[in-house]
């Protein structure tokens, strides 16, 4: 089986809600989370998706 989509990174302002294998970036503010997501999106050629106010993921499609 070929996995086509993968979570490359998790960016959060609330450390307690995430756990697991992908790299986790913990930020102080939402603004900081958005900036890091924008950079990671450009670097990894992925898309930044917003799951909740406190949580972004970068997904490779």
């Amino acid at each position: 089986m070929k996995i086509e989509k993968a979570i490359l990174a998790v960016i959060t302002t609330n450390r307690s809600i995430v756990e697991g294998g992908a790299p986790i970036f913990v930020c102080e503010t939402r603004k900081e989370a958005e900036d890091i997501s924008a950079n990671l999106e450009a670097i990894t050629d992925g898309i930044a998706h917003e799951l909740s106010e406190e949580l972004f993921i970068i997904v490779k499609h």
Partner: protein
Amino acid sequence: MNEYTMPILFGVIIGTLGRILMLRTDYRQYPTYLHGKVIHVSLGFIAASLGSVAIPAIMELEFTAVTFLTVAATQFREVRNMERNTLTEVDSFELVPRGKTYIEGIAISFESRNYLVIFTSFISTLTFIVFDVYIALIAAIGCLGISMVLMSGKRIKNIVQIEHCPLHFKGAGLYVDNIYIMNIGLPERQDEILKYGLGFVLTPKNINTITTIANLGQRQAILHDVSVTLGVFRDSGTPALTPLIKRDLDDGRIGIFILPQIRNVNKAKKVIGAVPVLESAIRMPSESSFFRWRGDE
């Protein structure tokens, strides 16, 4: 020079002319390749020769010569493979790919055009030998006309209604009308999409077209044609800026999200309307006996 020289020459010229005319009509599918054109005109010439030679061969009672036509069939199937391979190779470097269904459609039409050329040359030579050059000319023009009609095919505007619907966000979700397209997390990307994007909704006119426009290949063809004609606001490494089409599961409408460089709603509508309906996407559930036979209602 013998009695067949003029009829054969006539058939070959008409057939090759037919191929050149049909190359012009597929400008959208095959832009700008000069060498590609040379290949197809040459193959058209070969097809025309085969069609023209068949009649004199039969008249000389050389019936086995007709088996040459089977060689032609093999040859033109090869044309289809060649087109498919070339376009598939090139497709991975398109900003918005054509998709396999579209490529298959183009390949099929290239094969069938050669058969139309054989048919045109065949009829032209036949009428030239049986009647005279004037009747042959009329028959040839008739054949070319029929070929043009056969090759034109349906367009998207014949099977759906196209409406412009503004894009909007609910949270991070991008919507066209009520159709969910994708999740865009970053506010700056959202602003870009609202600034540069356009949304359209295609409403199918009947049950057959619901399945036809749901076909992923047909949808990709729409995106490709729009992106080629109106330009596309994206680059490699910006997957968030990808034109997409999603479907409303409720009623089969599809929502189109595009990022054209020429942001003109009327032009975009025209371009979407002019996208060919792909042969391999066409479904006709209404032709099924389950719909026509009303025995157990």
